[in-house]
């Protein structure tokens, strides 16, 4: 069955340091992959998505993600974290299930220390 695994429940990064959030997926076909962010008390916002083509995709707020088929991974990165990046991050895979739906991972909470 299709699934998304985010191995890290909580990560703390110093402001200005680089960030990598891990995501592994399980899906038989070519995956459609997404990263969403949820700031405290806010709804979910799309950061970036991968459908095909260039395996390095750029998103909003300075985020990027790299699709690696051999590792079934879609890790999210940012070169320099800002305090406002503290939030919960969700990786998702698009699946076809009599219609199309997003299946989400359990999320990674990012804390930023000064």
């Amino acid at each position, binding site marked *: 069955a299709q699934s998304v695994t985010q191995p890290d429940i909580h990560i703390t990064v110093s402001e200005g340091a680089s960030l990598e959030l891990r995501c592994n997926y399980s899906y038989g076909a070519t995956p459609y992959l997404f990263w969403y962010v949820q700031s405290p008390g806010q709804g979910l916002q799309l950061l970036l998505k991968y459908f095909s083509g260039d395996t390095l995709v750029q998103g909003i707020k300075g985020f990027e993600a790299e699709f690696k088929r051999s590792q079934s991974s879609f890790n999210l990165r940012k070169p320099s974290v800002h305090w406002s990046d503290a939030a919960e991050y*969700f990786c998702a895979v698009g699946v076809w299930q009599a219609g199309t739906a*997003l299946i*989400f991972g359990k999320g990674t909470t990012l804390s930023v220390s000064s």
Partner: protein
Amino acid sequence: DVKVTQSSRYLVKRTGEKVFLECVQDMDHENMFWYRQDPGLGLRLIYFSYDVKMKEKGDIPEGYSVSREKKERFSLILESASTNQTSMYLCASRGQGWETQYFGPGTRLLVL
């Protein structure tokens, strides 16, 4: 500006009550979704709809039903609320294919 609205931000209900959560989108989207969000469990898909009057079960449909009589409105129904249905409920909508999926602000439901 795209918008997905949910009828209530906070809701308190008693065990056994019938509960309606309403979601409206103004983007003429075909697809609409209901998720519940619980700490440590992420977002889990309850039901979705890809057209008016059409519905499909997600991963955790037990104890829930849905209704989509009009394209812009998708309702989640808890036939007999139970305490284990205390959660944050998120509605989302999306156009055809894999366009961006937009989320509502969520309804935090407490069942006593």
